[in-house]
């Protein structure tokens, strides 16, 4: 019996599946970091919230960040439809909203330094949690900027995976905020 069979091509896992799986594992791992921060927050302070957090800024940046997830979704859809102009438009909008979110957090920080400095327990938790989250927002914005730069040059006309990855990461950062916002402002 001759055994030198050629491997059937359909056996190989498609590259896109491998990439997606890796991305989701990354989210799983990152969730542990944020879960650890939440544990620290409730472990140290229970459900106590400092009354001087600015509810209006908190609500505003939350709405903007959630809205930016929608525009990110539209950007991904535009990339899949090979609509270059739409991709550029929606990416730009997402970037602007992300930047507004960061500006809001920065403004809140300046206020918070006086109200509850890092040397208080709530200040420690507030600055660490918003800081770690903002760091992820910044990296997300860097990815979105690179996407925008390349989208203009038409590099995603063939393969929209980078757009999908950047947008999924942006959604992930949003979902984290969905847990952090109530933990820091509401409960």
């Amino acid at each position, binding site marked *: 019996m001759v055994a*030198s069979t050629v491997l059937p091509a359909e056996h190989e896992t498609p590259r896109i599946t*491998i990439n997606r799986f890796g991305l989701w594992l990354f989210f*799983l791992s990152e969730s542990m970091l944020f879960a*650890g*921060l939440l544990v620290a927050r409730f472990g140290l302070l229970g459900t106590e919230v400092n009354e001087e957090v600015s509810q209006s800024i908190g609500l505003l940046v939350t709405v903007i960040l959630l809205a930016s997830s929608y525009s990110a979704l539209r950007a991904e859809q535009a990339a899949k439809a090979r609509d270059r102009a739409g991709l550029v438009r929606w990416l730009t909008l997402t970037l602007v909203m992300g930047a507004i979110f960061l500006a809001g957090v920065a403004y809140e920080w300046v206020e918070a330094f006086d109200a509850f400095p890092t040397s208080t327990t709530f200040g420690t938790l507030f600055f*660490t949690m918003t800081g770690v989250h903002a760091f992820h927002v910044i990296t997300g914005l860097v990815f979105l900027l690179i996407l925008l730069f390349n989208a203009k*040059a038409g590099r995603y006309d063939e393969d929209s995976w980078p757009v999908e990855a950047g947008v999924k990461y942006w959604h992930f950062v949003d979902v984290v905020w969905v847990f952090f916002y109530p933990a820091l402002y509401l409960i």
Partner: protein
Amino acid sequence: MAVVGGVVGGAIGYVLGAAGIMAIRAAVGARAWEVESVTAGAWLVAVSGWLLGVGAWKYWVSPWFGRPERTYATHGWRRYFDFDTDHKVIGIQYLVTFLVMFFMAGLFAMFMRWELMRTGEDVVNADQYNAIMSLHGTMMVFVAVAATVGAFGNYVVPIMIGADDMAFPKLNALSYWLVPPVLVALTVSFAFGGYDTGWTGYAPLSVQSDVGGLFYNLAFFTLGLSSIIGGLNIIVTVVTMRAKGMTWGRLPIFVWSIFITAMMSLIFTQFVALAMLMVILDRTAGMVFFDPASGGEPLLYQHIFWFYSHPAVYIMILPAFGITLEMISHFSRKPLFAYKWAVGALLGIMGLSSVVWAHHMFTSGMAESLRKPFLASTELISIPTGVIFLSALGTLWLGKIKFTVPMLFALGVLFNFLIGGITGVFLADVPVDIQLQDTYFVVAHFHYVILGGGIFGLFGGIYYWFPKMTGKMMNSGLGKLHFWAIMLGFNVTFLPMFVIGLQGMNRRIADYTPDLEPGNKMVSMGAFFLGSSFLIFIYNFIYSWARGETAPANPWGARTLEWQIPSPPPHENFEVPPIILADPYGYGEADSLHADMGIGTLEEAKDSERV
């Protein structure tokens, strides 16, 4: 050369990062230069600069900015100093780097035992002793966590599952090149006088310690990053890149052990990164996570730290279990006994690993109600561990055992881990633990587990896969001499530690009462013998790599895929993708064949595999 680019990139990164932090500090009215805050902030930029300089920019990131893709083009020995994406190169990079770290840490142990030979502070003073002890512990833990997974997880696992590389080769190179900054941080820490917290870095001492402590935090944080990325890559590789016919039930047990280890790395390592981040923030940003006077909680550190670091114990030992079972089957010429139960046991250890952490904290002052549940969950671990032993013993039973060097190490793991495991049963018991906490009984216990189990497994793996990795045979006479020397040295060093621990010898201390001197002398003598036995290994390793006999493709007559291809394997591993027909342990079973390598006829394949 790439490493030079990395150093330049790292220096530029540090300067840029430092400038940024100093600007922010000046803006908020603080003194611009303050070594801790500036270094902590600049570290991330410096490491990014190092990675970009060492090759991440050239081979990875630059196409994101519209530059053309470059394919990798370095050959020969220079590949090992470059951002090479071949899993076989990365495996060897990991192995050599961590061997260097291992021998550095071993040298520190020699200094510790020199000081402890007599009472009094006669060789080094208490501060120097603490620094040496802390660095020994930290480096050895890093080696135990990352060496086996990094070296053999990278080199062997893709071949064992019939893949041509890892799922994400560039990510793989990234995870390796994060390791040199770890070594740099630890060395710099020593230059700053080290730190005195031990490898566990408990707060609040770690918050108050000198600047050396900051580099410990940065080093652990960076190794964590490397570990997470590496773990992710291994999981995706094993799930998506298996050859046709390589079902989960046919996966070699070593692949299972690395796969499960990778899952633990992926999930738990974030917590140690978080613990390190919190300490850094307490140190540099005036935060109060661990300051009880301001409402913080020092025990929070221990909870978060051990939530990673206990699973990390299994990250250290499971690969060694995998290597041990693998070799016991191949060298007993018998199918692996209770394969499915062994896999289940590995999974069971992973499951339990997340619910036992507070057994490190019985005397910490945590709520007393937590003691019993953690006692019970910890004792439960002995059940899956026992199943691993049953699998090993059942395989050995009536086997045609070949006492090769790797097989001797596998049997050494069984012997040493038995002692380490059973003393662990005592230590998990709250009343016993309260007596023995922080004594040399604990030191002896974890050295039996990690050195006697994990590191013996690592060296068994080196002797086993060396012919495949280098294409040269290691001298087996010297190998056997090395085995018996370290087996003897190891047990003479660590068995008496149980006794002096019971007599009340505290760990992490440079001095002790005179009645403990005889025991300590014996430990020190054993340690010097143990340490010098590694000289045999170093000689054998270097000499055999340079001048050893050429290795055949399958010197051990083993059935797993890596032995069915040439030594060392060609770049793409397999000429034709293999098709897996059965599990790799069908020794002595008529007509069993692990894989159709697609070369020649099935009959020829059976003949060559039978050896």
